[in-house]
């Protein structure tokens, strides 16, 4: 079977795929929860600075990942 399936590459795709493909949405979700989750808004509707920072760290990592992916494409790594 190993003649037909590159198990090493496959395992890599699956593991890193889980890390990135499931981790990034989860991180994004943490960001969303930070600024819109229960208790995020004070009575006057404002969101505390701490929550904002946390959210933007999460969103920032997502944006970085997109930039990294574009760089990867442009470098001909496909």
């Amino acid at each position, binding site marked *: 079977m190993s003649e037909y399936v590159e198990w090493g590459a496959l395992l890599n795709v699956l593991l890193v795929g889980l890390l990135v493909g499931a981790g990034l949405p989860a991180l994004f*979700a943490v960001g969303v929860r930070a600024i819109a989750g229960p208790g995020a808004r004070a009575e006057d509707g404002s969101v505390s600075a701490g929550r904002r920072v946390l959210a933007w760290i999460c969103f920032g990592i997502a944006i970085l990942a997109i930039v990294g992916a574009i760089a990867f494409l442009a470098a001909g790594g496909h």
Partner: protein
Amino acid sequence: MVGVTEPLLLAVVVATALAFDFTNGFHDTGNAMATSIATRALKPKQAVLLSASLNLVGAFLSLTVAATIATGIVDSDIVTLEVVLAGLAGGIVWNLLTWLFGIPSSSSHALVGGVVGAVIAAAGVSGVLWSGLTAKVLIPALVAPVIAILVATVGTALVGRITQDVPDKDNDRMFRWGQIGSASLVSLAHGTNDAQKSMGIILLALIAAGAVPADSSVPFWVILSCALAMALGTYTGGWRVIRTLGKGLVELSSRQGMAAETSSAAVILLSSHFGYSLSTTHVATGSILGSGVGTKGASVRWGVAGRMFAAWMITVPSAAAVGAAFYGIDVLIGGTAGSFVVFGLLIAISAVIYGWSRRQPVSSSNVNDDWDPAQQSESYVAESVTMHRPEIMRVKRKELKRAKRRAKAARGAEEAARRRAAARVAELKDEPAVRRGSERDGER
């Protein structure tokens, strides 16, 4: 163009390669944009415009074009211009047929299939490297959806858990942005990967015909025309495929859509990074299925999915059969005339398929309509199986029939009432009833 051996043949091959590029964009828009359209993160027209622009940009983004076609899958000495032409024609026909039935299937597998068929017709089965075909095409077609389903299931479950107590309005608003971002990445990757396949084919044809030297890089007009052909195909929008992907498999929310697209983008890019290329179509479909599996209470229409898997399994043999037939015709007639006949035949078949599609058109206006159970009876079966409630199928079918009867009766009564009213009005105003009738028709 000094020293071109067969300029007409070359022109036909280039035109066919561009046509394949067009169907490629056309067929694969859904991979990137179906979820964004289904969750209404983007309007249908906006989505295809964005996808087309990113395809265009993607085609220029990286120019590491390999002038090879089906390397390691067929014996490269046999690949002549006629083989390439027949292979492309096989790929186009299969792409159009699957589009007609709204089935997302891999364009690159269709091309490989077409070339394999043409090679078999040209040199017999020994011209195909079967272990390469199994390892590079057939097994990845089985593996890709499994990996994508796993990744998307985990991602969707995590997202669902983390944001379960966030108001829906906020979830939708923010996840739509995430969704657009990840979908754009899929479009960009598609433009970079797939437009380059066509560029490679055209370059190969140019070298074979002696129009450019063997070590030539891709001429600018080739890059431009490939990028434009694909972007145009994408913009035309394979609405039938988009509809199946976005509405047919899972009822998607923005959160599911975002998780699915991120999983697609990650798996596609990682698979090419690790040198184990998986088809964009298979990955995108798997991700959408996974987003249904990972959501509590969501039902996945496995019946529709099963039909897709079946189509993927027969993509290579079917495209191969068409490719072989085209090659046979080409050789039978012989010379440049044969290639012209193949080209003409291809145009005729495409026209027939297009004509067929008009009988039940799907466009940007009805792409998001509810999945019609009357049209897709197996979705009931799928739903009743996944939810372990066999009664769904029976009850709903009965209800469906009843509802149809009611609708028909209501329509009939309404029509009769309107006719009576029109007649009365006509009598009162002393106007001919016929004119009123035609006006009414115009209104509808």
